[in-house]
């Protein structure tokens, strides 16, 4: 299945990103030359200690955090999410409720489902057909029984952005901790934590051109906290374990670059995304964009192609050197299509055929034009095989015309 050739087009940046060459350069000395343990007193360690301090500052700047000590390095976004939620529960044992949403990343949802079996009550907010939350419903759930609200800043599949600052403010007014999984938002949209009421925020390095294996938990000064990993003084005793120095240095540089490219992301990258959507929608019948078109990440396009299945689309795209991803059941090995698409009420005939194209600053408009050219024949080929598709369009009453025995 390795059909990689030179002109391969990578449009799966919400899954992971290329390490920026400038980030890699910055990291290089911290393997064989500056290998010291930052905790050590001698010069080997000391220099690394200073490098970490600089990285912490770079991250603080991108997040608009008030203090650099609010940045805690972790191993990944998932660890940051688990640490935040479990900390809130441990620190406030009398509070047994969690508020989250139906469309969270599994890093939060799976943990919450597990916590339900431990006796916690988890409220999962629903979304409408565009992936938006009902804030009145949210307000009605806020009470002194709630230990933490955990809501993603932007959805990884549809790119829909939630009103995080407003929701954090509402929680703060009631004295409730607010955590946001911002792994898709950091570096793509401006964030200013010091002017927000957000208690905790998760970010993941590899989503913004830093390497894999590094994450951050932002913890507002004064928020009650219980570590997940104890056993060392690192990160002021809040996350024990020797620091992953090269990755931290890389993440610092990546955050600096993300800040520099923020405008580019929201103009040029957005223009590529918009052109892709417009081009595909004009050329392919029976497809539509999912999510909230007015409030989305600038880099994410999620297009549902009706009456065909996502994995088949991805395989054919891969064959012509285009990398994307899908919310179809088959790509994950489960039988249900994406929980995000189902939560938005996207019908099964379309939910299985959703394809996500996610951009980065490394894509080009020429690539976009090639994708626009390649997609229509692929969709047409698969529809020709589909029992729900006739000569020139969906069969009449697809549900009745083809109603298999076990539906």
């Amino acid at each position, binding site marked *: *299945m390795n059909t990689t050739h030179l002109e391969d087009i990578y449009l799966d940046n919400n899954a992971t990103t290329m390490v920026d060459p400038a980030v890699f350069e910055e990291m290089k000395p911290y393997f064989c030359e500056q290998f010291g343990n930052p905790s050590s007193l001698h010069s080997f360690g000391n220099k690394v200690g200073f490098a970490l301090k600089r990285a912490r500052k770079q991250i603080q700047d991108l997040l608009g955090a008030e203090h650099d000590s609010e940045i805690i390095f972790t191993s990944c976004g998932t660890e940051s999410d688990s640490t935040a939620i479990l900390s809130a529960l441990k620190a406030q044992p009398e509070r047994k409720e969690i508020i989250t949403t139906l469309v969270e990343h599994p890093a939060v949802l799976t943990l919450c489902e597990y916590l339900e079996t431990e006796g916690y009550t988890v409220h999962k907010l629903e979304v409408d057909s565009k992936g938006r939350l009902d804030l009145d419903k949210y307000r009605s759930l806020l009470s002194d029984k709630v230990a933490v609200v955990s809501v993603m800043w932007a959805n990884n599949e549809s790119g829909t952005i939630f009103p995080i600052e407003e929701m954090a403010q509402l929680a703060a007014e009631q004295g409730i901790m607010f955590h946001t999984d911002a792994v898709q938002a950091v570096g793509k949209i401006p964030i200013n934590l010091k002017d927000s009421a957000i208690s905790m925020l998760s970010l993941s390095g590899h989503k913004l051109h830093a390497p894999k294996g590094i994450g951050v938990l932002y913890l507002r000064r004064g928020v009650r906290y219980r570590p997940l990993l104890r056993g060392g003084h690192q990160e002021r005793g809040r996350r024990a374990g020797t620091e992953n120095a090269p990755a931290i240095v890389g993440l610092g540089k990546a955050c600096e670059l993300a800040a520099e490219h923020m405008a580019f992301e929201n103009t040029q990258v957005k223009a590529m995304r918009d052109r892709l959507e417009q081009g595909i929608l004009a050329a392919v019948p029976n497809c539509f964009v999912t999510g909230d078109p007015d409030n989305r990440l600038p880099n994410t396009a999620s297009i549902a192609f009706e*009456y065909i*299945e996502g994995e*088949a689309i991805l395989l054919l795209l891969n064959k012509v050197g285009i990398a994307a991803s899908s919310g179809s059941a088959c790509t994950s090995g489960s039988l*249900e299509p994406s929980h995000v698409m189902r939560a938005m009420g996207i019908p*099964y005939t379309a939910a299985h055929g959703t394809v996500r194209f996610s951009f980065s600053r490394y894509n080009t408009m020429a690539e976009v034009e090639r994708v626009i050219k390649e997609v229509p024949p692929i969709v047409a080929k698969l529809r*020709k095989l589909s*029992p729900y598709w006739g000569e020139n369009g969906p069969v009449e009453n697809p549900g009745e015309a083809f109603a*298999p*025995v076990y539906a």
Partner: protein
Amino acid sequence: MWDYSEKVQEHFYNPKNAGAVEGANGVGDVGSISCGDALRLTLKVEPETEVILDAGFQTFGCGSAIASSSALTEMIKGLTLDEALKISNQDIADYLDGLPPEKMHCSVMGREALQAAVANYRGEVWEDDHEEGALVCKCFAVDQVMIEDTIRANNLHTVEEVTNYTKAGGGCSSCHEGIENILTRVLAEKGETFVAGVAAVAKPATAKAPEVPKLGTLARIRKIETVLDSIRPALQADNGDVELVDVDGKNIYVHLTGACTGCQMAAMTLGGIQQRLIEELGEFVKVIPASKEALVSMEG
């Protein structure tokens, strides 16, 4: 990305017999749009001989669903209905040089479509008795519904029993938490509580103290050969084999050949051989694959 065989890729990229057959006299619709797989099989059957003259498919589904449909139509053309009905889902998977465990249900759908189409031709009503749940054991492709039904039907209480009855959990053991959760839920239905038995924390390498007198080098190697010979028929039954490469102290180097090469169960097979050798020799030995790929799969 899935690790699809060349054959699967060939049938997906260039499917055979796509589309409905003209003048079809047998139609089978199976699958479920909610599961993301649906297949319509159309057959043209010669009434005198019941020979399938032509077969066509229309599939909504992933790469392996389309490949399985294409393979099925190729396999059944020219067969009589009775011959065709003998095709199992495993036959379809074999025709494609295997399917990933998560994708075996694609071949099941193919077999069901065939049954449905034949029933339709014969004027019978085909009833689907197959319900599918989320995949629990990825080593042996066992789903939740199968595990639940087996627990209920056989009054099972432990993970070990579930493994013995369904094979689920018999490979890498990563799904044991999931099986425990299913047991907890199913047992609660009849008011029972799941009690985890004395879990295997670590298996003692030597079950009994080495009472066997220490063997000389030649006798020891002969003994090893004898043990391998006794295991060989079981491996050959699965088209595999094992050969002794070298013995160096406690390290016994073997080479798995034939179907064992690259088999995801190779590490388990080696573990089984090691256990037998430890028992027979009465001393701790380590069985080490002599080929590089096998070494990786054992450590991975």
